[in-house]
Each structure stands twice: as structure tokens, then as C-alpha cells.
């Protein structure tokens, strides 16, 4: 416990509950969930449908508010932020990757990647450089001027990853990023995300059902009925001679 307290902290979820009104009652999607995420982690939130994975990601991503409890991102208590500060926090500290890619269809790949920088007010010259680097890092520099409808599913999701990292966020949230991809593209995407995690030290939190993705994670938080069922983690030094997945599978 002392070791845990001493670790630097990027995300802290404290006893968070999220209820949704339904007819004349409430459905509790998350129930007193607490979680800490350190910088540079590659963390998966797993669990069956309806377990609260997306709700937890939405709350960490500041696109929803908890019914009770507290979420602290990079030292900022989000419950105290007004809507415009919350928007600014998302803009500066968080990158999003969605299950359905959610690229702007009238923009080219490069323009989609550029969008977060545009919103941040980055200069045109700086935007050009950073977009080129981001596209290069996802291996799609050659597809910069293609519109999303001319890209494959895997390419679209890689563009979405480039868009999520282009503004150098502290945290990248990915909601079921491989759900709409075939095995080949899913594996490529997982490798890409893990590579970015290791190379750039980016923190990734993603929700998934995908066993292929779980094999590559450092830590798996399992949710069931809105509660954390298990939280298994390891570090690369402890993983010598065994894959992450094997260790985690053993722990879980």
C-alpha cells in the first residue's frame, strides 16, 4: 500500500458512483469504484457488456459526471471544474479513440489529425509539423490527403490514434478500439498503441472485450455489474520469460 501511495499518479477515481435514470427508478452503472492510474501505464478495462466499462471511461475522460465520488486527473479535481474548464482539460490533457473511429468525413486524414491542434489554437506551421510526425508515427504519412471513406477500417483507426496523440495528451482513452477491426488490423493497432505507450511514455486506458488486446496490457481492471472485480498488474521487469498476457491470465 505504501508502495502504491508513493507512485506518481495521473488518474485517481475515488468511490465513484454513476446512476442513470430509467423509467421511475435508477440503474447503477458504476458502484463505488476506486482506481489509480500511473503515468505510462497501458491499462485495460475489461468486462462483459453492461459492466460499466464505457461509463468509467466517459467519467475519466470528463465527458460525463459522476453521481457521487471524485475523479482527479493530473492533480486536478474534475468535480470542481466548470464546463469551460472541463472542456479545456479534455482539450489539453486527453486524447480519445472511439470504437467507430468518429473521423470527420469531410476532412482528409491530415485535417482530422490537425483538428485537436486547431481547437488548441496552435499555429499553422506548428500544426503542419506535428501532424506530419503523428501520421508518421502511425505509419500513414502516405495517406495524409485521403478522406476517411477512402481508407480501410484499420487505417481509419490509426488515423484516430494519430488524432488522439497529436496534441501530446497526458492520457489516451480508447473505447473498444478494436471492436470494428479484423484480427490483422486489430493486432496492428494493438502493436501501434503499445509501441506509442513504450516509446512516448503515453498513458493508455482502454475498454475492451478483445482477448488479443488483453494479452498486450500491463494491467487489467475487470469490471462486473459496476464494480471492480479484479485489478491485476505487472511491470516489464517482472515479466521476464513470460508474456504480459500469460502473467496477467495467471493473476486473474
Amino acid at each position, binding site marked *: 500500500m505504501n508502495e502504491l501511495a508513493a507512485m506518481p499518479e495521473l488518474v485517481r477515481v475515488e468511490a465513484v458512483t454513476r446512476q442513470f435514470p430509467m423509467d421511475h427508478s435508477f440503474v447503477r452503472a458504476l458502484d463505488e469504484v476506486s482506481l489509480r492510474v500511473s503515468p505510462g501505464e497501458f491499462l485495460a478495462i475489461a468486462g462483459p457488456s453492461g459492466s460499466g466499462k464505457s461509463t468509467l471511461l466517459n467519467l475519466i475522460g470528463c465527458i460525463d459526471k459522476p453521481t457521487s465520488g471524485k475523479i482527479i486527473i493530473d492533480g486536478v479535481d474534475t468535480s470542481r471544474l466548470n464546463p469551460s474548464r472541463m472542456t479545456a482539460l479534455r482539450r489539453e490533457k486527453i486524447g480519445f479513440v472511439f470504437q467507430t473511429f468518429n473521423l*470527420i468525413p469531410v476532412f482528409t486524414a491530415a485535417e482530422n489529425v490537425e*483538428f485537436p491542434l486547431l481547437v488548441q489554437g496552435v499555429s499553422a506551421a506548428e500544426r503542419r509539423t506535428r501532424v506530419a510526425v503523428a501520421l508518421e508515427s502511425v505509419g500513414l504519412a502516405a495517406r495524409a490527403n485521403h478522406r476517411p471513406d477512402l481508407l480501410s477500417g484499420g487505417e481509419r483507426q490509426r488515423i484516430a490514434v494519430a488524432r488522439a496523440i497529436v496534441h501530446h495528451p497526458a492520457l489516451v482513452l480508447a473505447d473498444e478500439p478494436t471492436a470494428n477491426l479484423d484480427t490483422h488490423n486489430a493486432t496492428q493497432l494493438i502493436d501501434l498503441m503499445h509501441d506509442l505507450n513504450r516509446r512516448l511514455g503515453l498513458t493508455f486506458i482502454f475498454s475492451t472485450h478483445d482477448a488479443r488486446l488483453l494479452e498486450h496490457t500491463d494491467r487489467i481492471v475487470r469490471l462486473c455489474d459496476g464494480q471492480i472485480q479484479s485489478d491485476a498488474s505487472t511491470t516489464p521487469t517482472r515479466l521476464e520469460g513470460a508474456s504480459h498476457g500469460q502473467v496477467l491470465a495467471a493473476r486473474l
Partner: protein
Amino acid sequence: MGKFLLLAFRNIFRNRRRTLMTLVMVGGGVTGLLMVGGFFAFMFWGLRESTINGGFGHMQIFTADHFNRDEVRVLDTGIDNWRQVAATVKTGEHVRGVAPRIDFYGMVSNGDKSSVFMGSAVEPSAENSLGFTTRFASGRDLDGKPGGEVEALIGAGLAKSMNVKVGDGLTLLAMTSDGALNGVDVQIVGIVNSGVAEMDARSLRITLSAAQRLLQSDRVTNLVVGLDKTENTDQAAEELAPRLHGLPQSLVLKKWIDLATYYKQVRSLFSMIFIFLGVIVFFMVLMSSINTLLMTMFERTREIGTMLAMGTPRGWIVALFMLEATLIGVLGALGGVVAGNLLGFLLNHSGIHLPPPPGNTVPMSFKVLYEPALMIGSSLLVILSLAFASILPAIRASRLQIAEALAHV
């Protein structure tokens, strides 16, 4: 800003058929306004020029008393030294000529029947030099040469009621400026059809010299000033007004618009009709565009959610939707102006005539004028209408709950 504008521009072509329908509606509204407004402008122009060239002139000079008190006797408030005044005015810039006039009234008789007439006395040469046109049903204009029989023009309605024709004689009776009764025999040389039935039922015209003899006065009621162009009226009036100040009689210069009550009434009526039409177009574009823009918003719910999730300020979403609507308005207005001008060109060369307006006897040409102010005004109206229409969808889009928007199917 450039990228934002680009995004708005590309977005309006996402659903081409829907955008085309909106553009047709917006452009149709502008075209309709240009057609109606252009026709009204042609009507106003025609009425203005026919009013001026029909004898009204561009300006008229009266004594101040003419407006301050009623005449007890004929020419009681007339201009004394009118030749001097006319000479002064004639030297003014843009002035083409000056025509003296006397307005009087009296009785006309053919021996069997008598009737009231509204008389005007003119100098035919001065009237002709100003290009004032008289529409004759038969006969010719007044001669104006001294000596000989006194000539008269009478309205078609009066001629009919008196049962006279060109070449017949009539006797005019009028009160002189001293209050006595005087009479003169005239010969009808022309029958006038002005196009206004009420005028033609009472009008009678003789020469100025004949009227001065009949009325026993050297005065005239007013001086009519003709200019080279109607557009120069204000400038000429400003220049001439000070010249009238040094004269013995207190004189007043009135522009044609100050005196043309009928023109102003017609213009006011048709302007109101046009404004009403503009309001209809505004609401037509507004209501149908709200529906279209709301559909667009619902279709793009997830995309808006994504943009908001990435930290796009909600104000940007409002601006984006309003910009898109405004761009559609601009494109529609441009299309409407082009279509309106083309249609106007075709109509102007079609030779279509409309039936005579009430009180008139002459058919009216159907033409439209190209009015830049009308084009700008109509365009602004639809652009504004679309901008208004986008407010509700834009606000709705900006207020979307991000998590719900992202889950939107």
C-alpha cells in the same frame, strides 16, 4: 479560421440533394423578390417619368401665399413678375426650361349644354421645349401664335359629355381676378386622352395669353421647371432655392416628389405589398430551413459529440452551424440574383403587356428593372433568414450531452 470555414463549406455539400433543394428554395425566394421588386421599380419609374413628363416637371415655383392661404379670387396668390423669375431660373445648372402655368376653373357651354371645367393655361412652345407630352385622341396641340381664334384642348370625357369634336366652338365663362364674370369663345383643336378618366372628364387647356385675357391678369399660378435628368432634381433644387430669395415676392420651390401625391400613394401602397412579400419569403425560408438544419444536426450528432469530446468549445459548434447556414444563404442568394437577372432579361424582351391599371386606359408594359439595392436587400433577407433558422439547431447541437451524442446511432 480558414480550416473552420473549409469545414463549414464542405459540410454543406455532404447531402447534395438536400442542399440543392434548400438552394432552390432560397434562390427561388430571391428570384421572386427580384421579379416583383423589379416590376414595382419599373412601375415606379414609369409613373415617375410619366408624372414629370406629363406636365408636372421636375420642380415648380409658387408664391409662398399659394400654400399659406386660400385664393379669394383667381390668381390672387399668383406670381407677378414671372418673366424675371423664369429668366433667373433658366440660367441654373441642369435646367432645360421653364414653363408658366395658370390653373383656373369656370363653366363651358356649347349653347345647348353647360359643364364645369378645370382649366390650365400654358405656353405651347415652352411645354414642347420641356418635352411634356400630351396624348391626343384626335386633333393637334395648341398653336400658340398670337392672333386668330382662341384654341382649346379638352379632355375626351368632357368632349363626350358636351357632344363636341375637333373644329367645334365652345364658350368659356370664368371669374376674373377682379371678381367680374368674363367669357371667351374658343375653337376645339384637339381632344386629349390622358389615361386618367377623372381628369379627362373635366380638363380644358388654352394658351397662357388667352387665359390672361379671360382672367384679366398678368400673373401666373406657377412656373414649371424641367431638368435634363430626374436624378439631378435634388442638386438643382439646392442650387436654385437661394436664387429665389432676392426677388420682391416670397417664392417657394417645390420638388416634384413634394407635389406628386398620387405617385407617393402608389409607391407607398406597393412598397407595403413588397414588404409583406419579403416577410412571407423570410418566414418561408426560415421555417423550411429550420427543419432541414435540424435534420442535419441529428445526422451529425455523433460527430458533434466527437468534436465536443476533443475539447471544441460549444461556441464553435454554434458558429459552425450558423456559418454553414449563412454559406447556404450566400450561395442561394447568388443563384437567385443570377436567375432573377436572366428571367428579367427574358421578360423584358418578351413584349408582354398587362391590362390598363384602374383609372387608366392604356395597357402597361411588363418589364423589370435591375436594381442593385434590391439585389443586395433580397440577398441579405434570405441570408439573414437562414442565419436565424440556424440558431435553434446550432444551440441544440452545442448543448448535446457528449456521452449521449457519442452513443447516438
